[in-house]
């Protein structure tokens, strides 16, 4: 087996593709996502304002609007058409319309209507602006009434209790800042990593067929298929585990992403994920024992993982068939374990079925061996 390992190390060292996809690309992707969303929550999103009222009240609404965290200093437009056109050009993500005579009608108690338009083609930006604009509309209403209350001699506390008797105190547990970097990176980085974890075992086994070296491989392993396959996978697994460790250290050690269950449990989850993905990769190759088909299946699986893991769009809202399919995606289990251990801080055992699933993926390997022997002995390369 030592010879196989030595042979595999030589292959890895001489082909830059291995190093690129095992070390450089995963770490680059980690760096990309963590710097791209370094802000955490997008701030200063451009918002348009159409102020047809031109009174001190409307101006104060506009001023307050740009004081919100997510909203950038507004861009003023003369009329709604101009604002809509700016939206279509992608210059603003929404606009706030204060029609002519708003403050006069408010004073006359005729209940004027202000409106706001959100562009949900950009869901994140749209949602954030929506929140600010809606809050502002509530406040605008309140501001009018508050003046009257103060005049009646109410204290601020009394006034607020009158204007908003019930308030919702919303807590995002585990990620109280609603940091999108924490929310998305925690899943996107393992997802990208997973693509390579699927692909490299397939690539290294498939190229043996392609370059006609499978016989040599079996000879080096003295005919033991387990030695041949394990010897090939072991060096890869070690490199991947090291890269996984760097990712965990980078996310939870350096960037201090919430990790309430301790960094050790996330490291264990990451290691399980690495082994599970590699096991699944070998399984895919055994099912489709050509380099091209194996890699294609792996890319399908890898890219689909992002959507089906439930990070962006919840699994409970998917078609039941897809809900069943989620069990076959290691990223889904990783995601649940991450929520369990890092976000909520429960011990790993709390989510043992998912740990067991990841282990099952890894343990697919021995089941694949008999067929892999046939593949390596008899199959030849298909373009």
């Amino acid at each position, binding site marked *: 087996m030592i010879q196989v390992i030595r042979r595999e190390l030589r292959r890895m060292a001489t082909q830059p*593709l291995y190093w690129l996809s095992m070390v450089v690309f995963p770490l680059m992707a980690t760096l990309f996502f963590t710097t791209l969303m370094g802000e955490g929550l*997008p701030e200063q999103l451009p918002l348009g304002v159409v102020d047809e009222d031109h009174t001190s009240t409307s101006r104060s609404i506009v001023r307050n609007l740009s004081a919100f965290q997510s909203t950038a200093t507004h861009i003023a437009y003369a009329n709604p058409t101009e604002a809509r056109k700016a939206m279509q050009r992608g210059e603003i993500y929404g606009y706030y319309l204060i029609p002519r005579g708003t403050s006069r009608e*408010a004073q006359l108690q005729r209940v004027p209507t202000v409106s706001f338009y959100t562009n949900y083609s950009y*869901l994140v*930006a749209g949602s954030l602006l*929506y929140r600010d604009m809606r809050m502002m509309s509530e406040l605008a209403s309140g501001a009018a009434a508050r003046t009257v209350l103060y005049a009646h001699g109410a204290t601020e506390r009394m006034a607020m209790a009158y204007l908003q008797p019930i308030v919702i*105190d*919303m807590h995002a547990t585990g990620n109280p800042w609603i940091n999108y970097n924490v929310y998305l990176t925690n899943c996107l980085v393992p997802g990208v990593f997973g*693509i390579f974890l699927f692909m490299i075992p397939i690539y290294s086994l498939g190229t043996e067929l392609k370059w006609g070296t499978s016989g040599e491989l079996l000879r080096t392993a003295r005919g033991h298929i387990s030695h041949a396959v394990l010897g090939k996978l072991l060096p890869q697994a070690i490199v991947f585990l090291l890269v996984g460790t760097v990712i965990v250290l980078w996310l939870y050690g350096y960037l201090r992403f919430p990790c309430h269950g301790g960094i050790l449990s996330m490291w264990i989850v990451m290691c399980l994920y690495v082994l599970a993905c590699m096991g699944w990769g070998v399984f895919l190759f055994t099912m489709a024992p050509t380099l091209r088909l194996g890699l*294609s299946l792996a890319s399908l699986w890898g890219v689909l993982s992002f959507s089906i893991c439930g990070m962006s769009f919840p699994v409970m809202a998917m078609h039941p068939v897809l809900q069943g399919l989620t069990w076959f995606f290691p990223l889904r289990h990783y995601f649940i374990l991450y929520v369990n251990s890092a976000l909520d801080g429960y011990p790993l055992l709390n989510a043992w079925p998912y740990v067991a699933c990841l282990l099952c993926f890894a343990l697919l390997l021995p089941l694949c061996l008999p067929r892999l022997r046939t593949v390596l002995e008899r199959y030849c390369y298909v373009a």
Partner: protein
Amino acid sequence: MSNHHKSRRYHLINRLFSYELRSIFRDPAVLMFCVFVPLGYPLLYSFIYNEEVVREVPVAVVDDNRTGLSREFVRKVDATADVNIVAHCADMAEAKALVRERKVYGVIYMPTDFTRSLARGEQVSIGAYADLSGMLYYKAILTAATNVSLDLNARIKVERMPSTTNEQDRVTQQPIAYEEVSLFNPQAGFATFLIPAVLILVLHQTLLLGIGILAGTDRDKGRNRLLRPLVKTPTALASAVAVKGMAWLLVYLPVSVYVCGVVPHLFSLVQLSSPLHMACLFVPFLLATIFFAITISYFVRHREAVILLVVFSSVIFLFISGISWPGSAIPPVWKAVGYILPSTFGINAFIAMNNMGASLMDVRPSLILLWVQAGIYFLTACASLWGRARETRQ
């Protein structure tokens, strides 16, 4: 002699064109990535996101108040489309246990002094808790609780006013009314938001894969030297690259019509543009992508290697385009990287025209940049082909 030369060159161009088309359709891998993946993948994606929004998120309630009003609040939250109350817990510990088993995704807590504080005319806050495992869960719980609280607030305010008329009640509830309009994606749905970007990305990535696979195959089989006659003179080189581009354009125009025209139609997604306007976008987008792909295919060492190089970049390209993560919040470095990619402008222009009904004038900057990219990548594609032809392989 010039006539003879001309006819020879036309002959060569014709042969190159049919050779390229033949290699596209004869290669099973290229067929799979450039025909079957664009056929099937968008359907799969639309199927995943077809529900658009999440409804009836399971939530637990801890009602420490146990009065008519607190029960009314809970009932109203349960009645919203967003939230489904599946458990009434005796205390927070019990609710936490449910969260731990992932039977509920959030908890609503009614404080002990809820009704008493309200009766005293004090402000009272209701606790709502959700872990941020899914933004949509959080949003659903927040929206439901906020809407119900605003509704109850309006009623409480009126009750506190001394005898008034109905009209006065209305003014008291809301001196200034407001109206919210969701443009271009009325239900704020996930499919309408993400699918258009994915469709363009499917075209972009499959082109990179297909062209890369063919280049890798040429290198595998030592066919790169066959390129030598094509790169003898600058005109021959340019026409060779142009012919390659035209062959791929011919294949990808119908694929684009299916991916960006038929698929959105099948899943009733927004489609606001006309075919002619779409053509004005797709011709430069496809050309820029094809020449970009020919350029980077220089780095493909062998046939299957391109899959490892291209597939993972899809997610990165999606984020760099400014659809998921707002473009205004992307750091300048990554924005600059985005300018290199045809996908960035393709996605933004497609969404502007298809989803937001923008005119050609509105997306002019993107279209111009796509043509500029097509021009630049045409030159780099020439360089790439030239480099490949000069290569001597072991």
